[in-house]
């Protein structure tokens, strides 16, 4: 068995199991950064249930994670001929369960289904372009007839030390997934737009920059926005992308439009296929940060192909 090599932007890798029509088993290696993201989200949820008061209903958590993982497994087998450990789906389901708020458990299931379906059905250049969690949340907000909202972003009990640790860990994760530039551009742009909104008379410093210490912002910044499949491949592109999202978010916030950052990211990612196409024409390539093992059934270990990363989030 061999761990996958960086693949080019077209997603063309060695002999994939899909091509041979045999089913393969795909698991992330321990170096896969999604393991860190998944672990961080899990720790986050455990802390929320025990120490900090943003506890979520266990039934809703189970519904969102269960629906996302189950659908991801089924679609992986049907469409990619892969039985993948649904790590990406777990992250998607958990993000949905943490961020969404509804008194109807079906909303969590439907949102998770939308998120996973977006990954398999809305694709350009052989890859999805919406972040599944972002897609799920925006769809739930738009289509659930007011039954869904985004949960109040807990500020970690107003303990700035916890917020500082979260931001530090988040930036470390961004370094691993090579999205530090994007995180800095977005956070810097957000802070600047917050100050501009203050200058225009929209609230004090706590209102403008306080959300940056909250759970909602951290999840968005460190889990949703830096999705390698749903952000530009070049460093300059990512900086411009982060700043552009921040400007749009700031304008929407100034207009008192709720959930502005989710909408801003959604609208940006909707345009991503165009950017990917332009980048591909310019010959720009990006290595996948995902690290996977692919184990085909019924074939000798020698014949193991490099994983295609098709099942990444």
């Amino acid at each position, binding site marked *: 068995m061999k761990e996958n090599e960086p693949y080019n932007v077209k997603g063309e890798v060695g002999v994939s199991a899909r091509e041979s029509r045999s089913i393969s088993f795909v698991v992330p290696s321990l170096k896969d950064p999604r393991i860190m993201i998944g672990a961080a989200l899990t720790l986050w949820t455990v802390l929320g249930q025990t120490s900090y008061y943003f506890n979520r209903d266990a039934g809703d958590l189970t519904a969102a994670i269960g629906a996302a993982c189950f659908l991801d497994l089924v679609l992986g087998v049907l469409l990619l001929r892969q039985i993948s450990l649904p790590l990406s789906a777990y992250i998607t389901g958990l993000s949905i369960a943490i961020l969404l708020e509804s008194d109807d458990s079906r909303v969590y299931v439907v949102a998770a289904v939308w998120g996973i379906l977006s990954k398999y059905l809305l694709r350009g250049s052989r890859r999805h372009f919406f972040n599944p969690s972002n897609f799920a949340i925006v769809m739930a907000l738009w289509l659930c007839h007011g039954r869904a*909202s985004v949960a*109040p972003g807990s500020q970690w009990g107003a303990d700035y030390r916890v917020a500082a640790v979260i931001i530090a860990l988040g930036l470390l994760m961004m*370094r691993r997934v*090579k999205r530090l530039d*994007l995180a800095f551009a977005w956070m810097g742009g957000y802070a600047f737009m917050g100050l501009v909104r*203050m200058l225009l008379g929209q609230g*004090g410093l706590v*209102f403008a920059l306080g959300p940056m210490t909250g759970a909602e912002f951290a999840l968005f910044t460190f889990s949703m926005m830096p999705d390698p499949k749903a952000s530009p491949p070049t460093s300059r592109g990512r900086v411009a992308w982060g700043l552009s999202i921040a400007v749009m978010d700031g304008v929407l916030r100034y207009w008192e439009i709720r959930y502005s950052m989710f909408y801003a990211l959604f609208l940006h990612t909707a345009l991503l296929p165009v950017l990917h196409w332009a980048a591909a024409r310019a010959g720009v390539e990006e290595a996948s940060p995902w690290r996977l093992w692919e184990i085909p059934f019924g074939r000798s270990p020698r014949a193991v192909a490099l994983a295609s990363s098709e099942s990444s989030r």
Partner: protein
Amino acid sequence: MVGGGLKGGRPIFWVIGLLFLGATAFAAFSRMGLLDLPRVPSDLSVASAGLPDMEASRKLDDYIRHSPNIFVTMSSALNHEVMKHPGWRMRHGVEFCRLRGEESAMAGLQLMREEVRSRPSDSVLGNSYRMEVFRLRREFLKSMKSRGELTPQFPIHLDRQPIAFFEELVRDHPSRETKLQLALAWVDEMLLFPALEIKAPSSVQSVDILTELLSTPGNEWYVPALFARGLNHLHRPSRLVWPENAKTPVNAAVLDIAKCVAAGRKFGVGSERLHATLAIALGDAYVKAGRNSSARSWWQIAQNLCSDDDLQQSIRRRYSWPDEQILDRLEEELDRSRTELDHPMTDLALMWN
């Protein structure tokens, strides 16, 4: 191109960028401050803000309301140990009122009035009397309702009470504390009789008294009155058109409640629950002013201030309101809160408990 590290760029651009950001931050902070709250006068004292020793108030309130059965000591009618305690008549009055029968209630209220007259500026005493009358009137209305009485007539000891008593007290002792109790007595009336024809004039009476009180020099930052007037504005139906509407700016509740929050932050008095309650009320007031994002920010501050389950639930409810329904949902929530008469919103005990 591979990788995500930040490349160096020209240092001069970084310096210019940071200077620009710093200047923007300075200008923004100078304009709005931390929380966009009114500036508290530097010479404002705890006493002039009406936030005196909360611990002493809490102890007196506990003594009056949650005492063990004092009729053991009442058996020796002139027990000197009991009579030494400030507020003993109040405590006995409460106990009398809790006995069955009109005579004991009359005697109890008489004792309480004597106590309030002896210290008219004590907010705990005035509040206890008001709350006891409120309870008795509410029980009377309930019993009349269960008998099918459509136009109940209060017995003599409850008729026009506590308004009549506080009107008399204001005439004899026109202090800000007695005026506050009178204004709150009008709100009590409004809570007991939610019909618009009683609610509206009661609210107007209350606001008029509070406005006169707050416009007196030295009382501009009298927090209990500010909060009472702010709640009055907050609880007025937004879509109701009445003559006073023209006089009331849309952010009237914000202006009053924000002052309370600013004074509370300056002196750091009161429980976490009180601060969270104020923050929720300020958030609600921002909804009335049409500033939903500021409203949510204040609710979020409240969420961080107090972990009591009922407060957390009420914040979660507020967060689930979509923008297009937020005003209607808030008014439903406020309507509900006015019907919670076991703990009426006019009970000043919220301040010291």
